[in-house]
């Protein structure tokens, strides 16, 4: 309680760009800032600039629906996200900034036998890796979420659910600002409104970047540009097997506590949580077409409303206040593309689709380690870009599609 | 082999009396006046360009495909006249007629002044034709219960 009335700057005002940095991080979202923070904190690498074309958190970091969980399908994925959840659990204290991490539990509903099989598979994999995750039947679902309509005269009766007690939601802006403050205090420079327009190379390795505020030399470039990943990788002539889609979400007016667990229905393409501001937050699946244009659509509101009311008929008179759209960089196997590329010094964090926010801390720690040691940490070795050439995909199709 | 197994109108055979049943029969049991089952209309898919033989209606449903409507009894004849690239879809599509623009506007996002056209009715792919105040809707028969229920419900909302 000590310093809440004291006005303390979160970060230094933006200064001039230097001519040279050891590491340039493109993208001031959660991944870019986390990488910067851990470079300084864990490895003492501080001659680092984060370049952001707009304000920090202006991309998916400030638009996502903030689900943090680790009940993934593949052992590689589950292990990786579990480490991230553990880092998030400590991060408020570490940053001395309350990220409002609410581990209220995460329920993925099954409306078909097939879905129950996939959930059993996930639960079994999770349990073998020490992750709290289990399949529960309708009575347990009713106990965990009494608000749900569990009757059978609905289009999609609820046959059970995958329950993940440590899954939760977090305040996205807090994550961005907390990491930015941590990075700034560690000595990293953050440059908002600075767009990267070119990547300089010689002899197959990076030498610098061009920006809208001048050119910079550097040894390492990290692209943490999520929805813009293919555009930035193109600047280095690196081709990423990624398509960009939009993902939409909306919130209702704030309500007194109504729902204290996250409810996901992949079959109905909808997920629902209540934020700490009281709003009911509703998200969906990515739109099937590829685009960089982030316009919100009306049919999205209509079908999401239809499906939400099927789960929660009590919300019929609750009003939608705001809808918005973000860009998602989707990889073919729904797993990220993380680490080195064929261009020396060009490191990527991409392919995050609809699920990358939960990974920010683990991306930050592992990429920082990679940059500092020059070796790919084991945890992210399965996610190299190379896997698309060696056909060793890590398929999370069953666990990632709508579950974020 | 032919494709006789697609034909709905049967010549009588050897002691059996196959009974045809409309996919909408149950759904429209309690339908108010003005809603009619047209499932037994003859319906043919034609690839490529189609000339229209007498007594049929032709609706272009895709650049390279048309839906041809005719009386059930004429399917055989029309199929013959339309040549090779014809598939008898009489059994595939259910059909119904509703009356009133208002009701139609609650069922489909279509320009009712630019019919016939293909589009979604009750979220289901359909072809809609207009005759004055009456609208004929043809759609995959497996949605018959669903579309029937939506139509009756929409009509009830306007009653």
């Amino acid at each position: 309680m000590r310093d809440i009335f004291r006005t303390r700057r979160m970060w230094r005002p933006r200064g001039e760009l230097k001519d040279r940095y050891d590491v340039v991080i493109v993208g001031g979202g959660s991944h870019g800032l986390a990488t910067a923070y851990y470079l300084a904190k864990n490895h003492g690498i501080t001659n680092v600039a984060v370049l952001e074309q707009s304000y920090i958190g202006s991309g998916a970091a400030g638009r996502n629906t903030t689900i943090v969980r680790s009940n993934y399908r593949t052992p590689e994925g589950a292990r990786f996200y579990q480490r991230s959840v553990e880092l998030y659990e400590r991060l408020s204290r570490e940053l001395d900034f309350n990220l409002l991490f609410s581990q209220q539990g995460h329920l993925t509903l099954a409306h078909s036998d097939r879905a129950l099989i996939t959930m059993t598979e996930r639960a079994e994999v999770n349990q073998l890796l020490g992750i709290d995750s289990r399949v529960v039947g309708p009575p347990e679902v009713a106990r965990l979420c009494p608000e749900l309509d569990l009757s059978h005269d609905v289009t999609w009766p609820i046959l059970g659910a995958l329950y993940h007690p440590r899954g939760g939601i977090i305040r996205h802006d807090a994550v961005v600002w907390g990491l930015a403050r941590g990075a700034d205090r560690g000595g990293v420079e953050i440059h908002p409104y600075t767009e990267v327009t070119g990547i300089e190379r010689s002899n197959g390795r990076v030498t610098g970047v061009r920006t809208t505020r001048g050119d910079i030399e550097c040894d390492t470039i990290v692209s943490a540009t999520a929805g813009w990943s293919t555009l930035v990788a193109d600047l280095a002539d690196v081709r990423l097997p990624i398509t960009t889609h939009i993902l939409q979400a909306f919130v209702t007016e704030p309500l007194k506590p109504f729902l204290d667990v996250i409810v996901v229905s992949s079959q109905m393409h909808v997920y629902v949580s209540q934020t700490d501001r009281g709003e009911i937050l509703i998200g969906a699946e990515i739109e099937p077409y590829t685009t960089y244009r982030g316009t919100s659509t009306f049919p999205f509101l209509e079908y999401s409303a239809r499906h939400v009311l099927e789960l929660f008929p009590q919300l019929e008179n609750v009003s939608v206040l705001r809808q918005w759209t973000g860009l998602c960089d989707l990889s073919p196997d729904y797993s990220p593309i993380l680490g080195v590329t064929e261009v020396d010094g060009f490191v990527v964090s991409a392919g995050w689709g609809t699920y990358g926010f939960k990974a920010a801390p683990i991306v930050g720690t592992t990429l920082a380690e990679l940059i500092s040691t020059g070796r790919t940490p084991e945890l992210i070795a399965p996610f190299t870009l190379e896997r698309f050439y060696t056909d060793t995909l890590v398929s999370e199709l069953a666990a990632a599609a709508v579950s974020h | 082999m032919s494709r006789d197994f697609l034909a709905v109108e049967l010549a009588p055979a050897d002691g059996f009396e196959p009974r045809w049943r409309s996919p909408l029969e149950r759904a429209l049991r309690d339908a108010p006046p003005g809603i009619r089952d047209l499932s037994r209309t003859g319906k043919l898919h034609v690839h490529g360009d189609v000339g229209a033989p007498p007594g049929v209606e032709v609706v272009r449903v895709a650049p390279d495909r048309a839906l041809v409507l005719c009386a059930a009894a004429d399917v055989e004849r029309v199929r013959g006249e339309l040549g090779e690239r014809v598939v008898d879809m009489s059994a595939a599509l259910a059909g119904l007629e509703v009356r009133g623009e208002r009701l139609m506007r609650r069922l489909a996002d279509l320009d009712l002044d630019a019919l016939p056209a293909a589009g979604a009715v009750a979220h289901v792919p359909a072809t809609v034709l207009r005759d004055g105040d009456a609208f004929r809707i043809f759609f995959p028969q497996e949605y018959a219960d669903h579309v029937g229920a939506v139509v009756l419900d929409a009509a009830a909302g306007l009653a």
Partner: protein
Amino acid sequence: MRLPPSPEERIDRSRTVTFFFEGEPIEAYAGDTIGSALFAAGRRVFSRSFKYHRPRGLLCCSGHCPNCLMQVDGAPSVRVCTAPVREGTRVRSQNVLGSLDRDLLAVVDKVGGPFTPVGFYYRTMIRPRRAWPYYERFLRRVAGLGTIDKHARRSSRFDTEHRRAEVLVIGGGPSGLDAARAAARDGRRVVLVDEGLALDAQLPREDGFETIAPARAIGIYEGGLVPVDAGDVLLRFRAERVVVASGAIEQPLLFPGNDLVGVLLPSAVRRLTRLWSLRPGERAVVITADDRGLAAAEDLRRAGTSVARVVDLRTTQPAQMAARGSHGRVRSVSVDGDSVDCDVLVMSGGSQPAYSLLAQAGARVEYDGTRGIFVPRDLPPHVEAVGSAAGEGARGAAAVPAASYRGTESGGRCFVCICEDVTDKDVKRAIAEGFDSIELAKRYTTVTMGPCQGRLCHLPSIRLYARETRAEEATIGTTTARPPWAPVRLGLLAGRGHEPAKRTSLHHRHKELGAQMMWTGEWRRPHSYGDVAAEVRAVHEGVGVIDVSTLGKLLVSGPDAVSFLERLYPNRFGDLKPGRIRYAVLGTDAGRIMDDGTIGRLSERDFYVTTTSTGAETVLAWFEWWNAVWGYDVSVDNVTGALAALNVAGPRSRALLARLTELDVSPDGFGYLDAREARVAGVPCLLLRIGFVGELGYELHFPSPYAEYLWDTLLERGADAGIRPFGLEPQRILRLEKAHVIVGQDTDSESNALDANMSWLVKFDKDDFVGKWALEHVRERGPRERLVGFEMANGTVPPEGGQIVVDGLPAGRVTSARWSDAVGKAIGLAWVPPALADEDSRIEIRVDGRLEPALVRLRPFFDPDDERLRA
């Protein structure tokens, strides 16, 4: 107390309506809103503010602000100032502890405490971590406004109607009406919608165009889609041209005490006095930047309120301005040290074009420094703005007021955003902390994120921000518009909520027979008819029949049909004789299994292709796409719904069929994997002799309108052979006994035909086929995992999805598992590491946390040599 009747008033004094506020009956006139009736009954405090729980009263009376939100008949956050009275309606206040007039949480306003500075929650409650869940629960309880009855069901009816208009005019003010008339004169089909017409002066019915009110456009979306909230009906307009005449929104002034009860915007004065003949108070002060304030002063005088002072900011620029109150109600206002007593304070900070719809439609919004407002520019082609929505100063020039006015030394709070209780201090503090771009400041302070959606706080917050950072307002820009333009109920968006569901022609027969139905994709199918074991037995020993109409069915015909299919599938078809059938697996370009089914050759150039039940649409789209790419002379027709399909299976199926058809069904006349056309019970059928369930069997495909007839006939004529209908569950057991794969269950999006033990169907010697290179790569690198059968050592049935464990880690997975009476064992299919994929390999499967042993089996568990199948 009402004023004497006036011709303008909207109330019908001859008709009274009674509703309930906090359980007490309130009498109103027809034509009142809940808000006007409560005001008439003497209520001044209508809500408590979000954070400080300060009393708040009517401010705009136009549905823009958060001050009159109440629960109405269980619906949260209803703006009662625009909600018409209805007999018996139950109205309650929300977000109070105690009552509106005595809210215990108002203590927050008095003592301040840790929960007041902007962003406090980021900086508190971090340690100890154990305590956070308790803090969190507290935070959640104080957040939020309305409450929901958790047990309520859907109770209102909402409909959706699709409309078309050549010209859609949004807003029925003078400029909107002019636009509508002009377009109608040009012979266009015009519709005008207005959110408030029912409240303000009723429009004369005009010829030439249709008027819908109250009806609120909630957005302008792609394709000219303009959804309109017309109460219980959502009108989805598609318009060739949209004219936005949404007017302007009156803006508040920023000074200490600007949120006190009794502080009004001019529109509130106009509506209270004119529509409902109410006197807003006894003594008023007006502070205005434009003529709206002057008009309000006139209205007040006519209503018998004395106007003690009018400050016109166009002629005087006060340096100091503050309102003071007691018990939350305004008592006096001081301007440059000159204090005047009053119980009404009208403020008018100019008006801001209501540009949201335009911005959402794609217009750029630009700050006009000389007028101090944002104006829309660069409208998209089919959208037009008229009147004050376009930024035209309809009522004469306005002064640009100060970003905020200083109060006296000890002055109260000055609110920038009344929804979120954000003060000018909060904004300054945010800037000082480094949230120094408007977007960051907005997010940190949450200005514009409340129920008014920025209508009353966007412009003032930007002015303030610009002054504090010395930025040019013009360089600031605005946030992207986040639709909808006004809150819209989920029920209205959802409409009637019917979801398309597919049913086979035998759906009702199954129900009549007592089947338990289950979902498979969009279809519902019988799980069983009550006795799974008996249904399995019938197929093994007698005859059973299952409805397989859900199979996707495609006709592929044309001179290039063979080349087309050979290029799509890894299989070969050129050597398939007419009248013969082949099992085929469809692969993706990456060599993954996409779907499977049987392909029968009907003639040289006609093929009949079946797909999985859930795969039909995907496969059809896949076929059509490749057909377009390759340009073959082939046509593809989806006949899924045209044909019902029944699988008649079991040792007695042949005898049964023989009774119903003239076709030679002898083993020589109609062998395994033959296709025939014939009448069965008088119905023309395509008969396929295939055996997914592992016994002698025939699939009959025939026109769906005869499904019930043929089904009934089979059951009748097969009765003496003990025929039973069987469902999906018995089918799953039967096929598992044969180790037949279900694509999508035993395979997933990463499985390929080689690892799934189907290499026999992959013809690498073909020129090319979809996914060939990928399968070649798989062949070279060898399998990563293999699909095998297994039987449990001790009879436990492992869960589907269960894990094969090696060294304590997941190494494979069970995809299917069942108990089989016929085999006398628990059997299943699983993906295992290649090293464990040999006959008799021992694997361990996790069941309820224990490891259970099993043995790998590479051949079918039942009738391994297919003798019964081929009989």
